[in-house]
């Protein structure tokens, strides 16, 4: 892992919405092919962190570097950066007025100026990979939540991003659809994708992550391999967090 | 030149005359609004009746009233009624009649829309906590209907005030007519008075309608949460 090149680097990132900092001093390095999973209590800033990385939120301090190049500047061309950093959101955010195929082609055709035929063929391959070959012409309203989310993943994948960000992509799904989406993500991770994932699914985190980052109150409390994190927590905060989860799972796994 | 013109507004009792003229318009709209609320509520409830004949008749009435320009309706009543039935109505009475007919149609539609918007389970959950039928309406249904009804009804009021400006076309002496008279009266002393007087009329209408619009929007926002 140490040998691999650094794709993304955060140095002392601070984010403040104007009523106290949400992210206080975040520094981390993401390597090529690494899967980094962020966990932590609600409101700890993990979603905000992802949104800062692809410029949906500005930062008030620190630096973000992509391939060694500073991207947290006033005149960053975010449209270009976002082609390299794909993002999938919690609320399956397909464009409702377009078919699945049109949703997927919008980026490659309008942004990257790629040949429509070629992009279409790739889209077909990707849709097959996530098990949606028969839904190309469907509108989002005709899909289940899990299908929408898989289509959204394809829409991000087709841009050939260097990094994919997943922001609680299963949080809004019905329980029986969570698995199909997680399976797709797991498969992506295995095939060498560089990913940053925010999730509440701890067993999934354990299975998919190369590194787990535990965030609380805007700072990185713990960072380590899944094995380290789940068996030997270094801090009391992480222990408490995991305990509430275990307790909740015994009560029936309801996580608000 | 323009510095001279504005003078006309403050000469004699001109400003007061304009206000009196505006009051004629506003009075017509207010009477019509009040009547429309009463008739419109009945009309709205009548539209939920199952009898197809009643429904179709009301529907045709409603559509005709809403599709015709209000000025055409004014002409129909003011010129048409007197000719057809020998009833001679003054411009003001014609106006009240027309705006009540029109306002009731619009109001009826609003009432129907608002009462359809209260979901059925609201009645059921009201009954479930032991309220009787009257209490369910008093505490649960009516407040919800009113919240949906009041803001659009206030907007209808501003529409009525604006539309009432048309009565000048059937000879009612209201604010525009007064404005014309003032301009005519000062034709030689203040030749450019039209700019200022009509500008003042525009402002007067704005001042009559804007607060109502703002209040309606405010209520809408407050009641949404």
């Amino acid at each position, binding site marked *: 892992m140490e040998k691999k090149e650094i794709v993304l680097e955060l140095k002392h990132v601070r984010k403040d919405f104007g009523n106290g900092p949400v992210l206080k001093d975040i520094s981390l390095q993401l390597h090529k092919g690494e899967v980094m999973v962020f966990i932590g209590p609600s409101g700890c800033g993990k979603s905000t962190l992802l949104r800062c990385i*692809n410029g*949906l939120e500005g930062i008030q301090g620190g630096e973000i570097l992509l391939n060694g190049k500073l991207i947290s500047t006033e005149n960053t061309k*975010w*449209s270009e950066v*976002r*082609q390299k950093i*794909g993002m999938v959101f919690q609320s*399956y*955010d*397909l*464009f*409702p*007025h377009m078919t699945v195929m049109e949703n997927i082609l*919008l*980026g490659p055709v*309008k*942004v*990257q100026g790629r040949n429509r035929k070629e992009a279409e063929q790739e889209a077909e391959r990707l849709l097959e990979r996530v098990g949606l070959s028969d839904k190309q012409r469907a*509108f989002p*309203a005709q899909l289940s939540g899990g299908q929408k989310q898989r289509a959204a993943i394809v*829409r*991000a994948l087709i*841009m050939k991003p260097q990094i994919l960000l997943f922001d609680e992509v299963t949080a809004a799904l019905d329980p029986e659809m969570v698995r199909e989406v997680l399976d797709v993500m797991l498969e992506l991770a295995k095939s060498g994708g560089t990913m940053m994932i925010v999730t509440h699914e701890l067993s999934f985190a354990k299975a998919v992550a190369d590194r787990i980052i535990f965030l609380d109150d805007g700072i990185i409390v713990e960072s380590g391999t899944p094995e380290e994190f789940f068996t030997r927590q270094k801090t009391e905060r992480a222990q408490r967090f995991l305990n509430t989860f275990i307790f909740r799972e015994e009560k029936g796994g309801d996580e608000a | 030149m323009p510095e001279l*013109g504005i003078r006309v507004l403050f000469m004699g009792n001109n400003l007061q005359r304009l206000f009196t003229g505006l009051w004629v318009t506003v009075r017509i709209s207010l009477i019509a609004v009040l009547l429309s609320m009463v008739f419109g509520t009945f009309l709205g409830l009548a539209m939920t009746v199952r009898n197809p004949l009643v429904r179709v008749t009301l529907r045709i009435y409603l*559509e005709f009233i809403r*599709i*015709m*320009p*209000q*000025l*055409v309706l004014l*002409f*129909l009543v003011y*010129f048409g009624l007197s*000719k*057809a039935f020998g009833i001679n109505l003054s411009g003001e009475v014609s106006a009240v009649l027309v705006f009540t007919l029109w306002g009731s149609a619009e109001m009826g539609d609003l009432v129907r829309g608002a009462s359809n918007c209260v979901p059925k389970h609201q009645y059921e959950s009201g009954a479930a906590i032991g309220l009787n039928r009257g209490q369910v309406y008093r505490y649960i249904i009516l407040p919800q209907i009113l919240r949906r009804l009041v803001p659009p009804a206030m907007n209808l009021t*501003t529409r009525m005030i*604006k*539309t009432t*400006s*048309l009565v*000048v*076309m059937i000879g009612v002496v209201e604010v*525009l007519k007064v*404005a014309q008279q003032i*301009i005519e009266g000062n034709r030689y002393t203040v*030749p450019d*008075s*039209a*700019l200022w*007087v*009509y*500008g003042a*009329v*525009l402002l007067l*209408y*704005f001042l009559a*309608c*804007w607060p109502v*619009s703002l209040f309606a929007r405010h209520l809408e926002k407050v009641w949404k949460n």
Partner: protein
Amino acid sequence: MDTVFIKEYIPMYAKAAELTIVLGGLGIAFSLIAGLLCALIQYFRIPLFKRLVNAYIELARNTPLLVQLFFLYFGLPKAGIHFSSETCAIIGMTFLGGGYMAEAFRSGLMSVDKVQKEAALAVGLNHRQALMYVIFPQALAVSVPALCANAVFLIKETSVFSVVALADLMFVAKDLIGLYYKTQEALFMLVTAYLIILLPVSVLAAYLERRVKYAGIGN
């Protein structure tokens, strides 16, 4: 009813109706352009212009067209600004209609979920592209019923054009009543003419509204 009289004056009504349709059509077209422009200024929160647009919309929506026309036609010439009757009518309608259309477009734009814009940006679209391909098509679908209702409203408002010396339907009707006392015939033709113009537009508006409602857009 005097059918001979009616037949004789049908061409006069037809000509007046043509005026209503042409001026109404132009007024609606310009209103749509003005309204869209205003809504976009509000949407992108362009400083200063945003305030001007807000003030304009309030003024347009809270004053009657009739008074606006009086001001344009009789007031402005005293300040050295002269318009022809037709220009006055179109400016008046655009001023009034622009305010209403802006509100219709604005509520459509507001109805599109914020995350749609973020999703559009996330696939690399710039702000203009996000608006064009993702936000606006969805907003338009929501706006259509209100836009249509405004169009019907604006055509009805053309009935005051006679005050700026245009020989519209009301003018012709009033003329015939005054000259020949053929009140019933004149009013009958007036109502018929407006029905012929407004019924198709209303039916189309109702149809579009239903289509949009059941189009299944939105998830």
